[in-house]
């Protein structure tokens, strides 16, 4: 039973355009959400997070939106760059902002390809 779902295995966008990666969750106890990026032969790298008390968090080119009623979050990358090409994982945990230190439940990931 997958509690965190990333339904798009892959996404291809042109350099300079917006990339939108989506994630759905089923466990209503999740209250802290994170996005990680993974290049081949490297471990996942933390990108951005959001607590359930917020509906938006921005960090430079990256913005995460949370819709609690729909149990849906999305990651927007604007503008997309070729170096953004990687696998993006959505992850969730329980326990609020302190819960980022607890068990993370991951989706299967979305391969983003940004074409020059």
């Amino acid at each position, binding site marked *: 039973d997958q509690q965190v779902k*990333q339904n798009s295995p892959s996404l291809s966008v042109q350099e300079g355009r917006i990339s939108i990666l989506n994630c759905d969750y089923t466990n209503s106890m999740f209250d802290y959400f994170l996005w990680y990026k993974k290049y081949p*032969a*490297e*471990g996942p790298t933390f990108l951005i997070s959001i607590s359930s008390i917020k509906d938006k968090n921005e960090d430079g080119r990256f913005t995460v939106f949370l819709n609690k009623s729909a149990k849906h979050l999305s990651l927007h990358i604007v503008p997309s760059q070729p170096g953004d090409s990687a696998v993006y*994982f959505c992850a969730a945990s329980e326990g609020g902002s*302190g819960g*980022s230190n607890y068990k993370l439940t991951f989706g*299967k990931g979305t391969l983003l390809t940004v074409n020059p």
Partner: protein
Amino acid sequence: DAGVTQSPTHLIKTRGQQVTLRCSPKSGHDTVSWYQQALGQGPQFIFQYYEEEERQRGNFPDRFSGHQFPNYSSELNVNALLLGDSALYLCASSQTQNIQYFGAGTRLSVL
């Protein structure tokens, strides 16, 4: 400042053998979590260690065990290896109430 380091990077074992994987956390971090990533899947939580105790455990059999040392480094042990244990094993470290940072992982192949 060194990040999370894992050793070895690659390992080949045969069914029934035992394996030990090692992790050194990022400087200043006191919590270590272990994840298993099978091909085409997201990382799955195995367990987490804090203050040398197992704090949380995922849905993995008792063949998977771990340890945390006083210097916060950690080991993951897997006994009686099965073909299905072939995966990338990731270690993540964190401070209390902070983000988990991952190492590059150990690729385990069971033949």
